[in-house]
């Protein structure tokens, strides 16, 4: 149980750090919220990674949720922010449910490529239908009310920060429960042995579909929150590079525990911020080097490294 205790400590300290930084340095609210959004999306992608599947198209669910928020907010400006977010998540869940039926038949490269292709179709359609979608410049979203209150930007961001943090903690907890449940362990079984799943009377496709459905919802939620904090949706939210970043973060953080998604996202955002401030122009290089380093040194990601270290420490009586 000691390990769990550590993760609780990490969660509490991490959350406090987010809140303190966000309140002390107002500008940092956006990157923190964005980082948490990436973490939430990565929770979804990590579920796929646990099943041994890499999707280079999951960002499409962020895109679907984001545009749902934008369309609704523009059509009915009086709609509350919370409602918009729920609608966004609903749309991504619906899309995930439908697309899931098709993609769960595929594994490995083909799973990745089919997701990629579907997201590219969506990406190019959004880019093309300029009059509806604003093309590559995207759509602006005016600040909606939140729970019935109207906020100035600063207040709005604080509420979003707290809300996103709460969502991140809650979802992190739920996803970890899912990972450890019978469904979640069966999902991880897809990675190692589908034949056995089948001979246990289980449908690997069904198990994967469940995971896919949840992951679409998680990525969707991140997209809806992202759209709210930026006040803007663009097709870039659904580009394959963004999907690649989610996978990147999932590997960086490790899929051994749900908190890995947030550790990965934190490192990812810090590297980006650091590069933007001090090494403009080579942030991709920095990210690439970080990723290779992690894969070579800690293929189980940061969380894997921590778990291994803590296991060692225990053995030494630490």
């Amino acid at each position, binding site marked *: 149980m000691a390990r769990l205790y550590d993760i609780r400590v990490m969660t509490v300290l991490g959350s406090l750090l987010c809140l303190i930084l966000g309140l002390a340095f107002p500008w940092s609210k956006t990157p923190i919220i964005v980082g948490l959004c990436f973490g939430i999306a990565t929770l979804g992608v990590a579920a796929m990674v646990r099943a041994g599947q890499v999707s280079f198209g999951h960002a499409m669910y962020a895109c679907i949720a984001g545009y749902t928020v934008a369309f609704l907010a523009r059509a009915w400006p009086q709609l509350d922010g919370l409602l918009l977010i729920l609608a966004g998540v609903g749309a991504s869940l619906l899309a995930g449910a439908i697309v899931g039926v098709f993609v769960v038949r595929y594994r490995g490269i083909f799973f990745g490529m089919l997701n*990629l292709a*579907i997201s590219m*179709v969506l990406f190019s359609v959004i880019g*093309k*239908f300029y009059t509806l979608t604003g093309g590559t410049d995207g759509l602006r979203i005016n600040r909606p009310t939140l729970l019935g209150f109207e906020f100035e930007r600063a207040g709005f961001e604080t509420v979003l920060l707290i809300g996103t943090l709460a969502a991140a903690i809650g979802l992190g907890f739920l996803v970890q429960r899912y990972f450890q449940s019978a469904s979640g362990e069966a999902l991880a079984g897809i990675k190692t042995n589908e*034949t056995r799943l089948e001979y246990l009377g289980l449908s690997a496709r069904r198990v994967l579909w469940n995971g896919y459905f949840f992951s679409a919802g998680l990525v969707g939620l991140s997209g809806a929150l992202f759209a709210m904090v930026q006040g803007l949706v663009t097709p870039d939210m659904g580009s394959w590079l963004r999907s690649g970043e989610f996978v990147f973060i999932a*590997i960086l953080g490790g899929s051994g525990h749900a908190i890995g998604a947030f550790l990965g996202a934190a490192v990812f955002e810090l590297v980006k911020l650091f590069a933007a401030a001090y090494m403009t122009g080579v942030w991709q290089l920095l990210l690439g*080097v970080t990723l290779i380093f992690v894969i070579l040194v800690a293929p189980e990601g940061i969380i894997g490294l921590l778990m291994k270290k803590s296991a060692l420490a225990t053995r030494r009586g630490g």
Partner: protein
Amino acid sequence: MTLDLLILAAADGFSYAGLLFLVSLGLTLIFGVQGILNVAHGSLYAFGGYTAATLAIWATEKQAPTWVLLAALVAAALLVGVVLGGILEIGLLRRVQDKDPVLQLLVTFAAFLIFEDLQRLIWGVSPYSSTEVVSRMGNLDLFGITYTVYQLLLIPAVALAVYLGLLYALRRTRLGKQIVAVTHNREVATALGINAKKIGLITFIAGAFLGALGGAMAAPTTSLVPGVGTDMIVLSFSVVATAGLGQITGAFITALLIGMARSLAVYTAPELEVAVPYLIMVAVLLVRPNGLFTVAQARRI
């Protein structure tokens, strides 16, 4: 749809398909032997293009004859294929050979990110180009429409030659047969005394060369800007996946199909132009889950 339209679309589509084929061929070849989908392949395309333009600019300044300009393109591709391909294979992929395929894919993604910035550091951000060779090779009229010989004839010819040459090499030469053997079964091939490691390196370099050659051949017709590799890599993914992984003839036919469909889209439904390759891919994969040209194999239990 009239016949004229088809011919016009073919004239443009072939050139595009030729480039797409060269790049996809490299990708599919590497996949066949190494089992790795190399995301950094797009960077090889970009580096091939930039290096070719650099050499061509230099050759143009020296008033070199046309054949030298053409040779410069191939030389650039060779240089990039050997140097970058070698670095990638020996420095990176070998180290992750025994790891999870997801990690192998991610390593190439990381390499892609690094190469993107390196390319910007080397060649800067301004559009970069050298079109001398296209102008020198002149024009050709077809149904009252002027084409460049370079795009209408040379690029498709190079693609076709590479395709036929590769088929010949794989079927008739010792090295080719060894590559095919490793593609079919690495363990068995190793047991037969084939040095799979060496074959892996050679194939990777050959694949990298083809990716770079795609870029080099494209260089004289376009302006190279940061990000050229990004679009190419997803497109060639779609060719390779649609065709079926490791399918050379499949890649050839699929590239043609996508090239033609894209040209036709510009004439008939411009809104769909960008989405066309992916629509084709989704449609094919839904009907044939392993690609057009792959025969599914049951897993032995």
